[in-house]
C-alpha cells in the first residue's frame, strides 16, 4: 500500500510537469484528483487495510494527497505565467514581410528560351553567329542576286562595304553548313538589326530564332509538320499554323508562317488586322543554290529552314502593347514577369 501511494504520487507529479498547456493539465487533474481520480480510488482501498496499519497509512495518504495538489497548483501557475509572457511577445503579423528579391528573366529572352526548349526537344542543337556579319554570309551565300530589290526589305546597317549588322539570323545557316556535312539540325537564336523607325510595334533591334534541317528526304510537308508542333507546344492545341507562299532568295518553295491570333482565337480583331492570323516568320525549302554553295549534293540532300521573330510572340504571351518597353530597363516592367 505504501508503495502504491508513493508510485501514484510520483506519477501524478510527473504528469502535471509534463502538461504543456492548461488543457493537458486539466486532463491530468481529472485523472489524479478528480472525483473518480486515482487518488480517490486508492483512498477507498484504505477501508480494507488492517486497523493497526490504518492510522499510519491514512497519514501518508493525506500527505500524498497534499503534495499532488501542490504539484498541480504549481504547474498551473507556471503555465499561466508562460502564457502571459508569450502574449507579451506577440507581434503584429499584418506588418509587411522582409522579402529577399528574386531577379526575373527578361520576358523577351524567357520567350526565346522557351522556343529553344521546344526545338531542343525535337533534336535540334543551338548555335550562334556574330551580330556583325560580312556581305558574303549575309547576301551572296544566301542566293541574293546582285542589286536585287529583295535587299530593300533587309534595311541593312552597314559598317563598311563588307561588314554589316545582320538583318536576319540566316547567315548562321551558311556558317554551320560550311563546317559540317549533313545531317544538320540546328536552331540559331540571335539579335538582328534593321534600319526601321521605332514605334510601338517596330524597332531597329529584334530577336530571331533561325532553324535549319538538312538531310536525305526532308520535305516541305516536314517543314509544315515541325512548325505545327512548335505552334502547339508554344501556344497550346487550339493554336494552328497557316502557311502561304512568300519569297526569300535562300528558300524555294518559300512560305510565310502565321499562327492563329492568340488574342481573338482566329475570330479577327484589331491585333491581327481582322484576319485571325498573325505573321510570325518565314520559312521554306533551302534553295539548291545555297546547298550547292556550301558543297552539298543537292540531289541527295534537301533541307528546310525557318526564321521566327521573338518580339511578337513575347508581346502576345504577356499582352505587352509597346515593343519599346523591352529596352527601357524599367524595374517596374521587368519585375512583373
Amino acid at each position, binding site marked *: 500500500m505504501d508503495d502504491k501511494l508513493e508510485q501514484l504520487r510520483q506519477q501524478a507529479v510527473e504528469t502535471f510537469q509534463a502538461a504543456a498547456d492548461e488543457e493537458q493539465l486539466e486532463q491530468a487533474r481529472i485523472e489524479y484528483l478528480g472525483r473518480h481520480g486515482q487518488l480517490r480510488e486508492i483512498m477507498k482501498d484504505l477501508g480494507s487495510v488492517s486497523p493497526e496499519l490504518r492510522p499510519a497509512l491514512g497519514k501518508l495518504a493525506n500527505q500524498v494527497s497534499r503534495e499532488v495538489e501542490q504539484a498541480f497548483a504549481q504547474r498551473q501557475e507556471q503555465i499561466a505565467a508562460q502564457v502571459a509572457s508569450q502574449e507579451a511577445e506577440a507581434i503584429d503579423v499584418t506588418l509587411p514581410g*522582409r522579402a529577399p*528579391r528574386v*531577379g526575373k*528573366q*527578361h520576358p523577351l*529572352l524567357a520567350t526565346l528560351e522557351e522556343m529553344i526548349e521546344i526545338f531542343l*526537344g*525535337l*533534336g*535540334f*542543337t543551338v*548555335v550562334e*553567329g*556574330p*551580330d*556583325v556579319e*560580312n556581305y558574303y554570309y549575309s547576301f551572296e551565300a544566301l542566293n541574293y542576286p546582285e*542589286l*536585287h*530589290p*529583295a535587299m530593300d526589305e533587309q534595311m541593312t*546597317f*552597314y*559598317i*563598311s562595304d*563588307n*561588314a554589316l*549588322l545582320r538583318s536576319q539570323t540566316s547567315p548562321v545557316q551558311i*556558317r*554551320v553548313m560550311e563546317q559540317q556535312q549533313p*545531317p544538320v*539540325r540546328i536552331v540559331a537564336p540571335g*539579335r538582328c*538589326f534593321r534600319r526601321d523607325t521605332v514605334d510601338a510595334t517596330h524597332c*531597329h*533591334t529584334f530577336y530571331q530564332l533561325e532553324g535549319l*534541317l538538312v*538531310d536525305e*528526304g*526532308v*520535305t*516541305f*510537308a*516536314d517543314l509544315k*509538320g515541325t512548325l*505545327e508542333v512548335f505552334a502547339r507546344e508554344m501556344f497550346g492545341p487550339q493554336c494552328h499554323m*497557316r*502557311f*502561304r*507562299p*512568300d*519569297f526569300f532568295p535562300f528558300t*524555294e*518553295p518559300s*512560305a510565310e508562317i502565321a499562327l492563329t491570333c492568340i488574342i481573338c482565337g482566329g475570330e479577327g480583331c484589331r491585333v491581327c488586322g481582322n484576319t485571325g492570323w498573325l505573321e510570325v516568320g518565314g520559312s521554306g*525549302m533551302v534553295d*539548291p543554290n545555297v546547298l550547292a554553295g556550301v558543297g552539298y549534293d543537292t540531289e541527295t540532300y534537301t533541307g528546310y529552314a525557318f526564321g521566327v521573330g521573338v518580339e511578337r510572340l513575347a508581346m502576345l504571351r504577356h499582352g505587352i502593347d509597346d515593343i519599346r518597353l523591352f529596352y527601357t530597363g*524599367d*524595374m517596374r516592367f*521587368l519585375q512583373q514577369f
Partner: protein
Amino acid sequence: MRVPYSWLKEYLQTELSLAELCHLLTMGGLEVEGFEEWTAQDGGATEQILMTSVTPNRGDLLSIIGVARHAGALSGDGHSQPASSFPEVDEALIDANKATAGPVTVEIVDPIGCPRYSALLIEGIDVGPSPDWLRYRLEAAGIRSINNVVDCTNYVVWELGQPMHAFDFRLIKDGHIIVRRAEPGEKLLLLDDTWQMLGPEDVVIADPMGAVALAGIMGGADTQMREVTTTVLLESAHFDPVAIRRTSLRLGGTQASYRFERHVDPNLTLPALARAAQLILETAGGAITQRALDVKTADFAPQAIEMRPQRCNAILGTDLDAATMAAYLRRLGCQVEEGEPLAVCVPTFRPDIEREIDLVEEVAIVHGYENISPTVPGHLVASGRLTEVQRLRRRAGELLRECGLHENLSFSMTCAAELDRCCFPSDATSRSLVLLSNPISTELSAMRRALLPALLEAAARNARQRVADVALYEIGTVFHPQKIVGQASRLSTTPPGETPVVPNGDEAPLGEGPDLPHEQQRVAAIMMGSPLVGHWNLPDEQAGVDFYYLKGIVEQMCTGLGLTRVSFVRYEHSMFHPGKCAEVTLGERSLGVMGEIAPEVGEAYDLPGPAYAFELSLDMLLEQATLQRAYRPLRRYPAAERDLAVIVPDSDDFSAVRLAAEIAQAGGQFLESVTPFDVYADAEQFGAEHKSIAFRLIFRAEDRTLTDDELDGAMAEVHRHLEERVGTEVRK
C-alpha cells in the same frame, strides 16, 4: 499596289466573292493586306480597292492584268486581255540595233542596259484634261492626273505593268532616239525639276544633242508633254533590272523603276504601245502615221525547263501525279509536254521561273500550301542539347537572378558621347569604336564598347520615374574594331579557346580572316538603393547595397560557375570611385572591374545615391567555368575555433586577403579556414591610420578531435609568423 476592283473585273470573270477572291490571292502568294472604300475627291465615283503586297520576285503581279492572270490561274477561271490591235504595231519595223520609220529613228547603243526599245508616233493629238472615267481610275490607283496623253500612258503602266514615256516629238532633235550610257558629268533636268549629275552607270535616252530622259526612271523636263504638243512619241522599252536599280538607288526610285527592278516582261513593249495608242486616240484624238519601231537585241523566247514529277513529290512530300502537275503549270501560262520529265516552256512574264525547283514551287502554290498534309520528320531522332558554354551562360544569368538582379536588355548601338558622359577611359584603345556608315541617328551611330553605359542610363531612367531601387544585369555582346581571325568561335560546339586577335594597329594585314570587328560576350550589373531601404523593421544603413554587397554577388556568381581562383585587387578606373574599385582577376587574367560608380558619373546621370556596378568578360569567365561538382565527404570530427586579431596599418599591403594567406601559411595542416570577422579602427587604441582585423580560424583533423595542446601549438606558430615575419602586432 492599289488594285481597283472594277478594273480587275474587266479581265477576270469569276463566281468568287470579293472576300473569297482576296483569300485565294493571299493563299496563292499575292497578299491582299486590306481593302479601301475609295471615293473620288470630287465625290464623282466610288470604288473598292484591294491593297496588295507584292514580293520582290513577282514583278508580273504589279499590274491589273497580272493580278487577273494569277487569280485566274489559281481559281482555274482564266482571264482575258485588253483587245487593242493596230496593224502599224502588229507589223512593227524590227531591227537589232537601229531602225527608222519616217521621221523617227531609234538606236540602241547600250544593249546591256536596254535590250529592247519600241516606239510609236502619234500625230495630231489634242492635249487636254482627261475624261472623268480615266481621271477616276488613276485617282483610285493613287496616280495624279496630268493630261490625257500622260494619263493614258500611266493607265497602261497600271493595267499591263509596262512603264511608258511620252515625248513631245518636236523637241527630239532630228527625231533620233539614242539609248546609251550617260557621259561622265552629263547633266539632265528631270520632270520633277531636279538637275541630276549622271555617269556611265546610268542608262539614258538621248537625242543627238544630249540626254532627254533617265531610262526606266523619269523623263526629262525639256521634252515633256505640254498643252501645245501635237505629236507624241511613245516609248515602251525593256531595261535591265540591275542597271535601273543602280541608278535608282543613287537618285531615288519611281513607279517605273520599281517595276523595271522587279523585271517587266520583255515581250510587253508592243502590246503596251497598242493599248496606249488605243486610249490616246480615244481621249486625245490624233492618228498613227508610221509603223511602230521595235529595236530588240535578243529574241526573248520562252525558257524551256524540265521537271521530274518524282522529284517534285520528293521535295513537297506530296503524292501528285504528273498530269495534275502539268495541269497546274498550264494554268500559270506554261506550255507543258507530258512525259518523264515534264518539258515546260515558261512564259516570258515569269523570269523568276528558271529551274526545276522554281517549277516545284509553282506546283505547290497552285495545289495550295494548305492542301499539303503536314508530316513530322523522321529525321528528328537525335536528342538536342545545349553545349557546355550555352549551359554555363544560362547558369550565369540564373545565378545573378537568384541574387536578386533583374535581367536587362539594351541596344547594341550607342554613340561616342555616351562614353564621355560616363567618363569611360579616354585612351585611344578604349575609345576606338565600330562605327555604322548609315546610322539612323547620331545617338545610335556606333556599336557598344561596353555594357555599363547603357545600364547607367537605365538606372537614370528608373530614377527619373522615382524608382530608387535598381538591380539590373545584362549579358550581351560588345564590339571592338579589331580585325580578327577565326570569328566563328561562338559557333563551335566545344568551349572556345582564346580568340586570336590581330590588333588593328595602324596597318595590320587582313590575312584570311573576314573583315569583321571582334565580338565579346560581357556580363555587367548595376545596383542602387535596395528594396529594403525604408523597410519598417530594418535600419536603412543595413538595408542598402554597398561595395561588399555587390562583391558578394560577383563571388556568388563565380562560385556558382565553379571558379575558385577569382580575386579582387584595388584598381583605378575613371568610371569608378577611386577608393572603392577593384579589378576582378581569374588567375593571371583580368576579368573586368567592379566598384562604386564615381560620384561625378552619378551626377552626370542624376542618380539619387551611390550606385555599384561591375562589368566582366563572360567569355573569359566561361572558359574556365564548370558545372561539375565532386562530392566531398562530410567531416566526422568536430572543428575547433580560435580567434585572433592583428593591428595593422590601414594600407593595401596589409589587406585582409594577404593576412589570411599569411595565417594559412603558418597555421599548419589542421587549419581548415581563415575568415576575417571584424574590422575596427580606433585611433586612440591602435594609433592613427591603423586598424584591427580579427580572424576566425577553424581547425580540424580527419581522424580525431584535436587536443588543446595541438591547437595552442598551431596558434603560437601563427602568432610568431605574424609578428616576426609579417611584422604585425597581434592583440593579446
